[in-house]
């Protein structure tokens, strides 16, 4: 029996050339390849070439980097080829890509102490069937971001999985032209985060078991700011009730455990046809940067969410255990309306902070909420006690905004 098994293994090893079926230049890296072999391949690969890993686990003590255009990195499956960064002692990310036309697929990246895959300033990014996982489960010592394109153009991330990021699993920052589709985010602080970006479609993803499911954020102090035009549709966002394990001081540390979606100072966001359910803090929260109480030194940053359209979603579940600083705000406002428990948070909450400079307030900048079944709403009238009272009246938001355009990548 043993001999037969040995023979079978040898045969299968011989027959599995990682480059099989790849057209063009291909560098094969089979199990046992050293970190030096891998990094050398990443430097010496010609533009347009492929680096193909065989099945097995490859270990790295330092980060890897790629700066050659139009290169594909591939493995034999997200659970079969594993790049392990456990024990990494230098480098702030597992893999850094600074080249255009980058593709990665069928590979797993595990346990980097920093970000897993950072792609900086690239035009043309395609990530598919890729897994990033911190295998010890959610921990503050996990790396911050899983799949992390920043200042990129034309980004497509699909059929991928990220688990355990201490900030965001899927994080697209300061980018333009983005599709995040058919992915699964689980056990991260933020499942999927679109930040300071423009023209993004987030669709057909599943976000569950995170602290917050899907976030659309705009932050100050960056050259690429005031992102706009994000569509979040056809997603399954449920039971994102994980304790927030982000290291303190991070912006996502403000996300209350049990948040389905959070919109922070974002512009032109259309949220439709999603199922968002069973969140203990809130299904959808829309807030400005003002209640965070963080100094804004950037005069060109628009702190207020504008043109947010929430329509045709299914929002269900009872939110009765809001957490964190923002959760406390929710409870305070609800207590103003309903002095006695139980304190049930409505499906949709808005901080109610209006830009004093937008007066009169343009109809095209409104928060519009329509056709979400029996979903309810609260205007938190932040900060309480300065005249305005919280309100559950949704009628000021009974409006529709023009549909946003589909993202089409070349």
């Amino acid at each position, binding site marked *: 029996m043993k001999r037969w098994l040995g023979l079978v293994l040898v045969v299968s090893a011989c027959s599995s050339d990682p480059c099989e079926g790849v057209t063009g230049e291909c560098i094969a890296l089979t199990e046992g390849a050293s970190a030096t072999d891998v990094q050398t391949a990443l430097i010496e690969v010609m533009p347009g070439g492929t680096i193909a890993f065989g099945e097995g686990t490859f270990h790295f003590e330092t980060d890897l*980097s790629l700066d050659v255009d139009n290169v594909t990195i591939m493995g034999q499956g997200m659970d079969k080829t594993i790049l392990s960064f456990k024990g990494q002692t230098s480098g702030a990310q597992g893999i850094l890509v600074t080249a255009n036309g980058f593709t990665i697929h069928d590979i797993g990246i595990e346990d980097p102490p920093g970000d897993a895959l950072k792609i900086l300033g690239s035009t043309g990014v395609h990530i598919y069937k890729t897994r990033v996982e911190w295998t010890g489960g959610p921990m503050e010592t996990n790396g*911050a*971001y899983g799949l992390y394109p920043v200042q990129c153009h034309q980004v497509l991330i699909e059929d991928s999985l990220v688990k355990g990021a201490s900030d965001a699993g899927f994080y697209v920052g300061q980018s333009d032209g983005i599709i995040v589709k058919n992915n699964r985010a689980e056990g991260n602080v933020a499942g999927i985060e679109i930040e300071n970006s423009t023209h993004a479609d987030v669709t057909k993803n599943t976000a569950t078991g995170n602290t917050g499911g899907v976030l659309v954020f705009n932050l100050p102090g960056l050259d690429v700011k005031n992102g706009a035009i994000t569509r979040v549709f056809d997603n399954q966002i449920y039971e994102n009730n994980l304790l927030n394990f982000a290291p303190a001081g991070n912006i996502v540390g403000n996300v209350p455990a049990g948040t389905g979606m959070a919109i922070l100072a974002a512009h032109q966001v259309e949220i439709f046809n999603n199922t968002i359910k069973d969140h203990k803090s809130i299904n959808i929260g829309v807030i400005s940067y003002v209640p965070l109480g963080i100094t804004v030194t950037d005069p060109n940053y628009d702190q207020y969410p504008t043109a947010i359209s929430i329509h045709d979603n299914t929002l269900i579940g009872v939110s009765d255990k809001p957490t964190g600083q923002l959760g406390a705000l929710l409870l305070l406002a609800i207590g103003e309306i309903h002095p006695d428990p139980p304190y049930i948070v409505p499906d949709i909450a808005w901080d109610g902070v209006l830009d004093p400079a937008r007066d009169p307030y343009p109809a095209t900048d409104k928060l519009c909420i329509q056709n979400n079944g029996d979903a309810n709403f609260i205007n938190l009238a932040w900060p309480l006690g300065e005249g305005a009272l919280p309100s559950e009246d949704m009628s000021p938001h009974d409006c529709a905004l023009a549909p946003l355009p589909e993202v089409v990548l070349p």
Partner: protein
Amino acid sequence: MTKWLLLAIAASCGAPDECEIDGTMCKKLSGWGLFDDIATQTPAADVIPYDLNTPLFSDYTVKDRFVRLPAGMSTTWNPSDALDLPVGSVLVKTFSYLHDRRDPAAGRRMLETRVLVHGESGWHGAAYVYGDNTSDADVAIAGKLVDASWTHDDGSTRMNRYAVPNQNQCKECHEEHDEIVTPVGPKVRNLRPDRMQAMIDAGVLVGAPPVDQWPHAVVATDPATGTVDERARTWLDINCGFCHNARGVARTSGLFLDAAETDPAKFGVCKAPIATGRGSGGLQYDIVPGMPDQSIMIFRIASTDPEIRMPELGRNLVYDEGLALIREWITAMSGTCL
């Protein structure tokens, strides 16, 4: 058009070591013909040593720096940017650990020599790593980790897993957003005056004003050479500014630490972090005036954790003297964040 091709005989196998300034790096350091004697770092006649007022901290290594310009060519004095070195120029830097930092005469362990060459298509770099025989060094495209130990300034034994950078990492520091690899140095304001004079005397640096109009040489760790603010900004410029500028690889942070930045919010005062992860240390702002222990900048300079420490490349150890300077600088700042 000049064909920039160098041919040399590689010491090891007798085969010619083919190298050109536009991409193909010599396999051996000797292939560049930069030294009369590599083991003693004795430069060839056309290779000029230089030194900096405030160097980049590299885990307590000492560095020998050299520049070679093509025969008959020169560079023109530039008061603000890095010297514009003509195509064909070579910058050379050798990293070593003194066996005993208190006694340089006790000798040293040579680690690597980095070579940056200015080709027609931009700058290209490679690192050459020394083995036991330091009469030559081998190119290390993918970098290397080297365990080293030495006797420190205070007499203690220190150890480091020194990281020779890979070829991409050369670019991460030396590259700006327009994908032209530019040297970190030398800038005239950071060139040690006696070495600058030697470059002028050799005819490779032209157009220099009289000595009394040279920029004031700031040595970050020497209080006699500038105010705390001048020395701290110089230190940040050299140690952080090549990535943390509007075109560098750290541009996505919005934190700009190059000497040209004048907006306190952009060099970190009351600036909230963006994608910091554990790098925040639970703190709200990069710099809180008067409160170094509330400032993320101090937390990261003082850390050796690869996800937290800054700079993230080329440093495993804490630079105690630099940390003390930035701490002093923040302590002296006035104002509050909220």
